[in-house]
């Protein structure tokens, strides 16, 4: 094991992994974190703690990661390249590792124009692939990006994101290959609704030998309503939601749409298990943490391995 990550152990033991997600609060409020985290405990192998997602200010992802770690969950500490330069990123990685964070996810980050501070400077000192390589080098070679020696190197199980639905499609597996070459131990994908495209992406990744070198967790998000399905289909950049998926949810009466969304998700999980190279699922139940126990139960993902 390269780290003390529960997710690493679960994947290494060959289990079909499950990760969840928790969005930090827009305030110095520990209670909402604890409430959300309590729903996830025992339900997932690690919990992604988002880093100012959609470029909106929230409590620091390292702080929330520590809070849920103390509660006995494993945080997957997210870090975006939008808000920090290489100095701040490396110092945060050292601090996170020293305080027991073992798993992290390296991302570019949504553009500030989407968020609550569109006036902000858009840092992007390094990009997500350079971040993956920087963390890997810190952990494995004990060196900063500058080449300087780290006296006690951090240990991280390093993750990255992949969006099979972004364009150009032919670059998606190649970009994944770069992330793997940079040192990504695991990958979490964008939410999948377009199975033909995802299957083709996985076929390419598999053929390139990438599924041997990294563990790919397929992203799933329960559709809570027809409105959400339409929003995902039309408003979220780099997302592909087929018309029949939107129709399936919209055809239900309003009070049955959430139930249909969960049914669809359970079917998706079954289908994902059959795709070669899919090592688990990343469940992004956006502001629906309290439904996670029911969802993972019904999707046949319980009990989670205790390793």
């Amino acid at each position, binding site marked *: 094991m390269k780290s003390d990550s529960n997710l690493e152990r679960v994947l290494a033991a060959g289990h079909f992994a499950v990760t969840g997600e928790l969005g930090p609060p827009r305030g110095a409020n520990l209670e909402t974190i604890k409430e959300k985290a309590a729903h996830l405990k025992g339900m997932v192998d690690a919990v992604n703690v988002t880093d100012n997602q959609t470029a909106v200010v929230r409590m620091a992802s390292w702080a929330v990661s520590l809070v849920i770690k103390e509660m006995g969950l494993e945080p997957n500490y997210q870090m975006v390249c939008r808000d920090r330069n290489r100095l701040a990123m490396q110092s945060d990685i050292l601090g996170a590792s020293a305080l027991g964070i073992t798993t992290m996810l390296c991302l570019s980050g*949504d*553009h500030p124009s989407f968020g609550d501070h569109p006036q902000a400077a858009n840092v*992007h*000192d390094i990009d*997500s692939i350079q971040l993956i390589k920087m963390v890997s080098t810190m952990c494995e070679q004990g060196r900063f990006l500058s080449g300087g020696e780290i006296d006690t190197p951090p240990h991280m199980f390093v993750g990255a994101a992949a969006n099979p639905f972004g*364009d*150009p499609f032919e670059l998606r597996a190649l970009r994944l290959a770069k992330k793997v070459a940079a040192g990504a131990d695991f990958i979490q994908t964008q939410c999948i609704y377009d199975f033909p495209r995802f299957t083709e992406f996985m076929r390419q990744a598999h053929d390139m030998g990438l599924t041997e070198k990294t563990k790919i967790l397929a992203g799933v998000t329960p559709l809570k309503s027809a409105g959400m399905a339409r929003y995902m289909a039309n408003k979220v950049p780099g997302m592909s939601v087929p018309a029949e998926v939107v129709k399936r949810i919209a055809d239900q009466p309003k009070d049955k749409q959430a139930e249909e969304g969960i049914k669809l998700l359970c079917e998706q999980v079954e289908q994902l298990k059959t795709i070669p190279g899919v090592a688990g699922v990343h469940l992004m139940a956006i502001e629906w943490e309290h439904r996670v126990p029911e969802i993972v139960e019904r999707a046949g993902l319980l009990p989670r391995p205790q390793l």
Partner: protein
Amino acid sequence: MITAQRKPMEEIFQSVERFGKILLLGCNECVTVCHAGGRKEVAMLASALRMGRLKQGSPLAVDELTLERQCDPEYAEELALAIDKYDAVCSMACGCGVQTIAGRYQGLPVLPMVNTTFMGASERQGVWAERCAGCGDCVLGLTGGICPVARCSKRLFNGPCGGSSKGKCEISPEVDCAWQLIWDRLKQLGQTELYTRIMEPKDWRTARDGGPRRIVREDMAI
């Protein structure tokens, strides 16, 4: 070229309200080409200022002049004899021109009439787009002649983020995805292997992050 846009009229009127006589100073270089601060724009703004102030009941005397190149001390010298007549110089040049004039005539207010915007090229009549961020270490040879620093909204060096959709950037359907353009061109050039290499973190010292930059050419010094 350096592109610029005239400031909003309200801001311009406000910035000159305490003056009675100004020199409106254009530049015959970049701002002429992008129709922001050449002879023609100087004439138009001068008329607007005169009329506006006349309507307000506090007339403003505006002299017009367009220098060959405002960012060059040699041309800035042309103002030396007449400059004392004015309460202020209102420059329609880019920030480089404004500072050259302000540096030469220290006792006189020199005000910008345009917002200097970016280094860009003309896409078609009336449309200019950013092309260069002046980072000081050009990578165009590795990226199919399309700059990821100036043209990717996240200045990514290793390919498109997940927000690239149908050739457009996630920030706006009006903005091309630089990495779609780079990929298309690399394919056209038969250089797709360039994409597979990881581009290492950039040394931003050659850009503005290293502090204000200068070029010193000993061989050119007189």
